[in-house]
């Protein structure tokens, strides 16, 4: 299979951990799923969503984390795209990551209590961000927080996967996938094969 498949493969790897078979009740509450093609209206009602895996205390924390990772800032972010629900659904179906995420959330709460005296969701947005920066930015990393960084990286992977596979995420990127064309789309910059002008015009 020449040359193709790398992209989908990468997507699979984002979440791809070997998973042991385990029974799971079902998907009846999966609010995104199974709409037929063309069912454009994306009805996300977080208030009505009942998490399958996360506890009532954990779910708002997951939701807040996704919102911090991909915020609503002029264009909709992870919260509007219902990414926390996506994560809950995927984790509920993946025995291999449940433990890591649950202990990660507990660690983050303990870390918040220790630093600011409150559980994570009760901190101000500024406090939350400064707590997460050493976990998410390389140049702010502090020694000794390996487990926390690993947890945050995992949460970020899930958030990216959930957001950019949502309709809102497609709009954010103006994702041209799955559209139809009369001829194979061609480079709109004839006469500039190296696209050098493009980059100078841009910068």
């Amino acid at each position, binding site marked *: 299979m020449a040359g193709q498949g790398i*992209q989908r493969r990468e997507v699979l790897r984002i979440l791809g951990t070997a998973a*042991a078979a385990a029974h799971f009740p079902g998907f009846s509450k999966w609010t995104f799923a199974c709409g037929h093609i063309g069912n454009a209206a994306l009805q996300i009602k977080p208030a009505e969503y009942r998490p399958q895996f996360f506890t009532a205390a954990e779910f708002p924390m997951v939701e807040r984390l996704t919102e911090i990772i*991909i915020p609503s800032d002029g264009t909709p972010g992870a919260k509007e795209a219902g990414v926390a629900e996506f994560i809950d659904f995927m984790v509920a179906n993946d025995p291999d990551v449940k433990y890591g995420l649950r202990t990660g959330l507990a660690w983050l709460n303990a870390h918040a209590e220790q630093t600011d005296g409150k559980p994570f969701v009760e901190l101000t947005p500024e406090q939350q961000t400064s707590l997460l920066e050493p976990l998410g930015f390389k140049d702010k990393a502090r020694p000794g927080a390996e487990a926390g960084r690993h947890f945050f990286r995992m949460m970020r992977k899930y958030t990216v996967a959930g957001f950019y596979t949502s309709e809102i995420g497609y709009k954010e990127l103006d994702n041209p*996938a*799955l559209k139809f064309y009369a001829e194979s789309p061609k480079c709109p910059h004839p006469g500039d094969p190296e696209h050098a002008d493009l980059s100078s015009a841009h910068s």
Partner: protein
Amino acid sequence: MAKQIYDVIVIGTGAGGGMAIKTLCEAGLKVCALNAGRRLDPEKDFRYHRMPWDMKFRGLDDPKRLSQSFGYMDNEYTKAAWDHEIPFTVAPGTKWMWPRCNAVGGKTNFWGRSSARFGEIDFRAASLDGYDVDWPLRYEEISPFYTRVEKMIGVASTVQNRPSNPDGSYLPPFNFRCLDFILEAGCKKVGVPYLPDRCAQLTQPHEGHPACHFCGECTTGCDVGAFFSTPYFLLPKAEATKNLELLTNALAKNVLVDENGHATGVAYIDRKTRQEVEVYGRAVVVAASCLESARIMLNSKSRQWPNGIANSSGQLGRNLCDHLYGESARGYLPQLVGQPSFPDHVADSTIAWMPRWQNLKDPHEEKFIRGYSIYPDGGCSEFPWFANELDGFGSSFKREIKRRYPAPVSFGIQAPSLRSDTNFVDLDPEVKDPYGMPVARMHFEWDENVLKMWEHSKQVCAEVLRAAGGVLEGSGEAPEIPGWSLHETGTCRMGNDPKNFVTNRFGQTHDVPNLYVCDASVFLSCTDKTTTISILAFSLRTSEHLIENFRRGEHKAA
């Protein structure tokens, strides 16, 4: 009721089987074809036009199933088509991935569509570099079959005059995207080729088939048949002759033989009833794909063939080769950062290739023999897979993902392993499949030569990326595991000497004159090119040889 005897039993309906079925039926022979799975219903089974949010797992698939997934094509969009029931085993030290599409049409339903001819440099490789043996035919003998196949299936490309890549007759090529022009300029500076790939995807209507609509989801199946697959291109022609009986969910078990050890038919398992059934024919074509064909033939043990049918040479299942795949380089093109999104992902990325440029003038120019090809890829894809390599979170992270979205590029290598005595498939002496048939056991490791190609490709691709003004971010840590490419070859190699080869130069087994092999298992070497178009060309040639043998009375018509 007298038992029905067909002219030919064909095992498999993929590229090799499909071509045999069509060719034999059109010649007036009565054919019974066996397929291990069901027929697909494009409307129901090809879910490729669904957006990720219309899929239960966003197209990412159930995490519980991912570990059992056979490759990137076996996913939430196509899961019903891949065989998960028949296991296989690996010898200690071997890693192997074995994606098997058991649906009618086999892997042609989802294939990558790159369609380069093998060249004289491949057929005479042994004469050039002294390794192994030459193919038992010259390029000029197979060339007309390639031409006929190209006309049948439609291949988009250009005439390129490359010494390793004979040209054919082509539909208009895909247009180059921004990233292609940028990489082409980089390749020019480095002195390596960057050209339109040979892509069996219809850039214009062809032989009654509609033009591609460039949605970019070919490897999850095309519901208009705008690229070659046997269910769209070959089986309807065979069915129109009324000479075809196609049995589905029929898992071939062994070839039946008479007193003389000649083939009389095939025993198969009806997967619906789980009963063993026999069908009879004057000749048998095995085209179940390289490894499964070997398994069936090895499992066809009889008094006459104690080690498997047509295996007096002991070479059945031996000489297994595969394409090494891997990401030789990845990075991004700063020129495209911040540009508007562009539909780059319209061909599942076989728009351009860097066809073999190594060892062309001197077979020992490099530290390895033979050569490899590179498939570049990039631009706006379904998913910003580069995002996880970016730093940070928040608005800056979100903005950077959008800016970088049109800019990523990667280079995938396709490099042939060399034949070796230690790479082969045999029957596991202990493990059986759910129907009681011994499973295939793989013995395989990448050889030193192909690993040198891998190292070489990482250097060259990094150089190309830098010369193109790109930023190199890394490469795959290791090649993909063997089997990943779905290009295994060599278990029934063709050659003139019956002592050393399973089939003759026509794909007819030396030992059993009415037993033919029509898939990549007959290939003497795996070359740097993809296999499908060559499977089609060789199957066409073998099928016509078979028809000729019927005409000459060597196989009595039913």
